[in-house]
């Protein structure tokens, strides 16, 4: 249940990032794309839990992805604040969304660990006892939404992130402005 919620949160974050790029005309940059990759890496851990059974290693996968995403987002915010001469934010939405997603995931994991006090091992055994009834349509639907979000992100990166848009990179764009 909680893994499904986390995967839905990750999928929603990806969809929100696509929305900011396509409808709010937020220009893509490399750090922006890397944050998406980190968010997808986070979602993979929850998807592994849903598809291959709950394991501590899968939570580790999700945590590593979240840490990487947070690192990239903080780096972007730091570079943004360092470029004090700039009046317009560069890819600021992406960093804020990534940080918001990490907060949501951390809250959900914290909720879970509060529910079962102790380690991730306890968390694993607690979920392993769940019984399965019939076809898990909810899991299939959540995984399908995540796969679709990843596919659209890949498609969007191939369409929008041309050499003109992404080739220069964020540092060069800061210099040009």
């Amino acid at each position, binding site marked *: 249940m909680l893994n499904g919620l986390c995967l839905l949160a990750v999928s929603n974050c990806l969809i929100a990032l696509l929305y900011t790029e396509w409808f709010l005309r937020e220009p893509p940059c*490399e750090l922006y*794309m890397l944050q998406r990759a980190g968010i*997808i*890496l986070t979602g993979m851990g929850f998807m*592994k839990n849903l*598809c291959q059974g709950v394991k501590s290693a899968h939570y580790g996968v999700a945590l590593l*992805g979240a840490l990487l995403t947070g690192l990239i987002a903080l*780096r972007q915010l730091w570079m943004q604040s360092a470029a004090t001469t700039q009046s317009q934010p560069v890819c600021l939405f992406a960093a804020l969304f990534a940080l918001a997603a990490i907060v949501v995931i951390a809250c959900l994991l914290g909720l879970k660990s509060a529910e079962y006090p102790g380690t991730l091992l306890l968390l694993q055994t607690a979920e392993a006892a769940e019984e399965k009834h019939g076809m898990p349509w909810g899991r299939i639907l959540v995984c399908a939404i995540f796969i679709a979000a990843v596919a659209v992100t890949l498609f969007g990166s191939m369409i929008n992130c041309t050499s003109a848009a992404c080739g220069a990179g964020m540092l060069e764009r*800061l210099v040009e402005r």
Partner: protein
Amino acid sequence: MFLYLPFILAFLTVLGIALGWRTLSNTLWLATMAVTLWWFGRYVSVPSWLSL
């Protein structure tokens, strides 16, 4: 072109997880993480023109 690489690997990983290919999906996950970290490594050093 290389910017597509993490997403292509991620998509293949997600498909591998969905299809139940554990070894392949674990390998692809590692590859995705490595490519993302390698790309992010370009931004770790602070450029000289950027005064902090």
